[in-house]
């Protein structure tokens, strides 16, 4: 990639970008550059908190559709300018930060809802739509997206697709990569393509899955058909208290061979004693688990019986429905300022996923690695996405503000070291770099450690689609 800017070229390129998206949608104003330079990534927040400015784009463009995106990418390719795609900035991995300058392509003007199709059960929308908006569109016709992450109100459809996001009802309804039918993608050279009209085909590899999770390094997803579901007749909750997590894992594995609840959340003893006590009100020692099961009433009655019988076998104390309902009501409250970790603390969520025979071992290994190597750090976790074969750990480290260096470079170093330690431990015990927050710039360096020679597959696709390397440089390890 060659990227040189001088005053003359800057002015030239600006006029071309204005021509592509309209003057009012192309900005070089400080407020636009600054607000696209800090996302939810701790390092960017810390940097700003210390009064430093993060790397900024030279241009902020807001195209309205794939045609305008195509024009922007053609300009960028010609001048070999980096292009970083920005949805709503709610990512935790720094994936949307324009670390190499160039163009920020903000997708939020591509927020049109083109179709609510209740025959084939999907909504077709621009990927700049905030997910909550498509949930509202689904609700208006009595349906639901069933994609309910904590960032539902603050992330775009494209953002979830870009880093393989997930919501709290994942066990029954799937991850974002299960929720897409067809997508429109603009390739780095400006070509506009559509993936297969339907998923689950045998017409070669799944193009959807090449672009989902690619974090803007292979192209820009501009339109998607997102699945919708009938609202459940009933949604019930049940809270349980396990004496330890081992029993909870055994019980959950057995349960998942029988039916799929919508929500499954197991909190370790530390998180039960902190977050769950504070927000849900469970003031007991042990590991709290919340299960939601939903659908047609007759089936839910049967599922409830199976759930109670199965969990009883493993010594779970039935806490009734109250705590689970409270949890559902407050499921996003956990993430508001005042409840969530925030600056001046140093923190991170090292979500990883593994089969059942490895997942608990990973938890204990990560906990020991973090707490031994960084005694100033607290390690808490919950397990929030469950499958027939395994589960994910949503584990967090938290360092008190008093133990975080004021010097931003030193604070960055501490953050990096903790992350490297935690993720390497996960990898060494059979985990992955990340479960659903993505890779971004935060974890790119660890991708080769996970994939080894398999990384050349990603690199080959990248070189073919983006020979000038303009798409979101330094992300995803590409």
């Amino acid at each position: 990639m060659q990227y040189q800017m001088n005053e003359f070229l800057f002015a030239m390129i600006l006029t071309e970008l204005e021509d592509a998206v309209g003057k009012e949608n192309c900005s070089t104003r400080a407020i636009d550059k600054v607000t696209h330079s800090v996302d939810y990534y701790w390092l960017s927040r810390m940097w700003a908190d210390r009064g430093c400015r993060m790397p900024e784009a030279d241009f902020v463009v807001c195209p309205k559709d794939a045609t305008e995106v195509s024009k922007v990418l053609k300009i960028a390719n010609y001048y070999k300018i980096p292009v970083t795609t920005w949805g709503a900035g709610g990512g935790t991995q720094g994936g949307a930060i324009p670390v190499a300058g160039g163009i920020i392509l903000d997708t939020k003007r591509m927020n049109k809802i083109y179709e609510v199709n209740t025959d084939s059960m999907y909504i077709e929308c621009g990927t700049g739509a905030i997910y909550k908006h498509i949930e509202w569109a689904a609700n208006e016709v009595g349906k639901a997206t069933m994609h309910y992450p904590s960032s539902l109100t603050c992330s775009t459809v494209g953002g979830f697709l870009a880093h393989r996001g997930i919501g709290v009802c994942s066990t029954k309804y799937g991850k974002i990569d299960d929720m897409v039918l067809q997508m429109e993608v603009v390739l780095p050279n400006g070509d506009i393509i559509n993936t297969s009209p339907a998923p689950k085909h045998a017409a070669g590899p799944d193009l959807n899955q090449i672009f989902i999770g690619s974090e803007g390094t292979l192209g820009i997803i501009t339109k998607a058909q997102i699945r919708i579901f009938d609202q459940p007749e009933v949604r019930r909750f049940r809270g349980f208290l396990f004496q330890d997590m081992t029993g909870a894992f055994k019980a959950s594995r057995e349960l998942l061979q029988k039916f799929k609840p919508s929500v499954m959340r197991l909190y370790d003893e530390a998180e039960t004693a902190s977050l769950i006590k504070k927000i849900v009100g469970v003031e007991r020692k042990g590991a709290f688990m919340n299960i939601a099961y939903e659908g047609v009433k007759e089936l839910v009655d049967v599922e409830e019986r199976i759930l109670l019988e199965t969990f009883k076998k493993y010594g779970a104390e039935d806490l009734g429905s109250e705590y689970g309902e409270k949890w559902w009501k407050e499921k996003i409250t956990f993430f508001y300022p005042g409840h969530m970790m925030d600056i001046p603390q140093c923190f991170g969520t090292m979500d990883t996923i593994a089969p059942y025979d490895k997942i608990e071992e990973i938890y204990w290994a990560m906990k020991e690695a973090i707490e031994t190597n960084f005694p100033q750090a607290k390690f808490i976790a919950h397990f929030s996405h469950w499958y027939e074969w395994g589960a994910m750990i949503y584990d967090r480290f938290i360092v008190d503000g008093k133990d975080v260096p004021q010097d931003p470079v030193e604070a960055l170093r501490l953050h990096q070291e903790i992350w490297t330690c935690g993720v390497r431990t996960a990898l060494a015990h059979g985990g992955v770099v990340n479960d659903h927050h993505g890779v971004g710039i935060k974890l790119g360096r660890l991708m080769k450690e996970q994939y080894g020679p398999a990384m050349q597959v990603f690199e080959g696709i990248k070189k073919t689609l983006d020979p000038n390397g303009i798409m979101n440089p330094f992300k995803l390890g590409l």
Partner: protein
Amino acid sequence: MNMSEKCKQHVDSCRFCWMCHHICPIGNATGHERSTARARALGISLVNRGAIELDEIMDNIYECCTCGACVHDCTTGWDPVMFTKEVRLRAALENKLPEYINILLDNCLNTGSAYGKTELCDDLTAALKVHADKTDILLYLGVDARYMVCKQAVKAIKVLEDADVKFTVLENEPASGAQLDFLIGAANETKEQMTACAKALDEFKTVVVYDPNDAKAIKQTFKEYGVETKAEIITYTAFLAKLHDEGKLRAKSTGKTVVFQDPYQLSRDLGETEEARKVISAFAELHEMLLNRAETVWAGNILMAEYLPEVINEVSARRLYNAESIGETAVVTACVSEYAALKNVEQNEIEILSIEDLILD
């Protein structure tokens, strides 16, 4: 920038929080990241830390309509409107207001309205003459109705006339201070304008406030700024509901199926949601659109259209889309400024009515 500690705390809480991203009518209309509460907080926090200059964020500070959707949505009680208004005040004190705001401000101070108009339309002038005599009840029209949408002001008067209400309308109505409050917050000039208004209102037993923006100022902001009124203050919609209860509105079905656009000043700030519905239901079949009552989405206004006309047009168009998407034939407004903004949208799909239009139909 010299900010209160309270505001700094709110700024620093919001600067890295995205939770209200979906609810901002301006942000949803522009699709621009800077239009969000967190972006505004981030910009202010960087000014406070010396990383950027106040001048560089001032346009952005005036892109907020102060509708309070973000405040209402925040589970933990952070208040982006509060710090936005404080920055406006600080900028005014430091002579750093954008030029287009200075023009509106000067107009407010010199003429009482941001639009700088002093002449009323002929119909309204004639209507005012009929109601010049002092009575117990004052109908307070407000600057938007008097100078920008005078036909609606005349209709508002007509509705009360038809209900046999004896009332006064002032020829020289003092400004409520609502526009100054929007432009520069709790400045001395704002409080002075409010104090003068309160004094004029106190000449009456009851004041019926036509524009929800003025109603919010008089019923709520006056108190916050230590300005007292002795008169009973009632919103126009609540007064209509009272007249309806007394059988004075002569309810009849218009055969229309409508949705109601809740003005945020009534629904969120004053907690008044059912009064207008009661009146509308007497004249039409009322359905509900997405995001109603306290969840309402601001549909634009006249004041911001003075400096952001295209953005406000898009805001209004998006709200009309909510009404259209449930297939109703008309949207009824209770805020003259929203009425004007919605009327400005080029579309033929849905009829836009004020409550007065519906009653006089």
